[in-house]
């Protein structure tokens, strides 16, 4: 497993292979290129093209639009109450990411550092790790009951649940990372009379940065694209997320496929834009989050 060192830094392509890349295999390059264009980009191309057309241009679905109908986006924007749903989703995502990073890393740090010395923390570690085997679907029905009793079937409530439910996985991720941090720094800070909280936030927290990035990306992807939890927990039409709104409005689009696809593009666009800018970090983050 010496590979891990390589994977944890932000340049996944190892230096070693660079010098061997003198002779380019063009056949392979073109095969991979053609496959990427048709298989991966094809459905996305279809989505965008349909979103830009009007029904009269739909006889050949694949053709480029002769005339671009931006008003599809305007109509879809209004029909699905996009701004409200977007802000709801943004709120859940951003608040979740920030709170997850602070609270989960703190818990993970303490548990990892003291679990070998203290039975209680060791128990906590195994408690959280075993909770990873309980999928959301298993607790869904009783959770719905409990959440409604606490009046948490709204945006704030679901955000809170995301922060809590992310714990098992994030403790798993952070603990692998914390193990690699030498204790010398904390010991020095402790000698200087720093309090536990100070030690964590001043010394350890900044060192965990690469793992924060990974956790942030994974939490973001989870909450932004999640459908099941909003579906069962959120009921007020004002308190829906983008994914849930897409499901709810499906029937109202009827055969207006152009409008429906324009609304899909609206939902996909923020993630696509983010991907274009942070692609390298996202890929590195997801890789290091999974390969331990």
């Amino acid at each position, binding site marked *: 497993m010496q590979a891990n060192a390589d994977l944890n830094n932000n340049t996944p392509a190892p230096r070693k*292979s660079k010098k*061997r890349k003198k002779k380019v295999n063009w056949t392979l390059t073109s095969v991979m290129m053609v496959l990427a264009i048709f298989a991966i980009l094809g459905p996305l191309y279809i989505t965008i093209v349909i979103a830009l057309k009007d029904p009269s241009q739909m006889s050949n679905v694949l053709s480029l639009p002769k005339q671009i109908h931006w008003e599809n986006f305007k109509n879809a924007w209004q029909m699905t109450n996009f701004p409200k749903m977007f802000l709801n989703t943004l709120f859940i995502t951003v608040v979740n990411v920030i709170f997850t990073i602070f609270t989960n890393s703190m*818990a993970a740090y303490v548990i990892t550092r003291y679990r070998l010395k203290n039975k209680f923390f060791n128990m906590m570690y195994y408690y959280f790790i075993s909770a990873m085997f309980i*999928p959301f*679907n298993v607790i869904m029905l009783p959770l719905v009951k*409990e959440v409604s009793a606490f009046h948490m079937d709204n945006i704030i409530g679901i955000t809170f649940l995301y922060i809590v439910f992310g714990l098992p996985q994030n403790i798993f991720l952070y603990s692998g990372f914390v193990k690699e941090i030498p204790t010398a720094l904390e010991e020095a800070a402790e000698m200087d009379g720093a309090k536990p*909280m100070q030690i964590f936030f001043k010394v350890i927290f900044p060192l965990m940065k690469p793992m924060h990035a990974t956790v942030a990306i994974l939490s973001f992807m989870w909450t932004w694209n999640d459908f*099941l939890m909003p579906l069962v927990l959120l009921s007020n039409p004002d308190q829906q997320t983008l*994914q849930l709104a897409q499901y709810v409005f499906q029937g109202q689009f009827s055969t207006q496929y152009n409008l429906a696809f324009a609304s899909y593009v609206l939902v996909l666009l923020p993630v696509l834009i983010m991907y274009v800018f942070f692609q390298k970090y996202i890929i590195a983050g997801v890789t290091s989050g999974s390969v331990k």
Partner: protein
Amino acid sequence: MQETIKRKPKRKGKKIPFAYYMMVVPIGILFFIFHTIPFLRGVFYSFTDWSGYGTWKFVGLKNYLYMFGNSNITHAYWFTFKFALFATILVNAIALAIAVGLNGKIKYQNFLKAIYFLPYMLGSLIVGFVFKFIFGNMLPSLGRALHWGFMSSNILGTTHAWVGILIMTIWQGLAFNTLIYLAGLQSVDPEIYEAAALDGVNPWQKFMRLTFPLIAPFFTINLVLSVKGYLMVFDQIMAMTNGGPGNSTTSISVEIYTQGFQGSQFAVQSANAVVLFIVVLTISLIQLRVLNKREERLG
């Protein structure tokens, strides 16, 4: 690891400051309230006849026995296992092939990698809607124009509807698995290949004997995550078929959702959720054990 061992005697007996407990215990309690309690309550309900409201009594294992006699629920298990099996095998085989391709001496490697990873970013519900359109409108009209009988009808309205869902799942699932395999392949020291080249082995042998054992840990990760994920399949089914036609594409998760909120089935579906949990746990543990053993052997 070495450091913890070194440190251990020095700190032995020292009390852990209260503040450290405060950094774990509150969130641990919240987790217990919102995750463990619902889980335990679900297990509890599965032994009652509670309909979600009103009175209840214990019924023992009745809900579990009922489950096995209910053809809809047994079919949901059969469908989910079939789906998870095919999805896991196909996604991993294709992803491995793409990863090998991306790891070859190709140009624009980073660009291509970014493209292949793109589907991971997209929500499965939306991707499901797009594929529903492709299967329901685009392909049939294309099939009719070309007079290809097999393509002229919507696959989602046939007994092969699950294949349509499978195709969409593969399209999306490839992204993640490819990335992990690529990370594995890139971690292999090229000098090993150089040594092998001298021995004159062919590419297939090279892959099976050299590469595959080296990336075995990555194979394990992918397999475990794939199986777990596909046993939970939900979003794309809700987007594409709603579980139909008939109940042919109703997965366990869809069954729990659609039936669980019906009064008469609340307790039964609680039992279903418990069985699902046991299934996921068992499969994950077996997989980890078997694959770890094989890794050891291969390594």
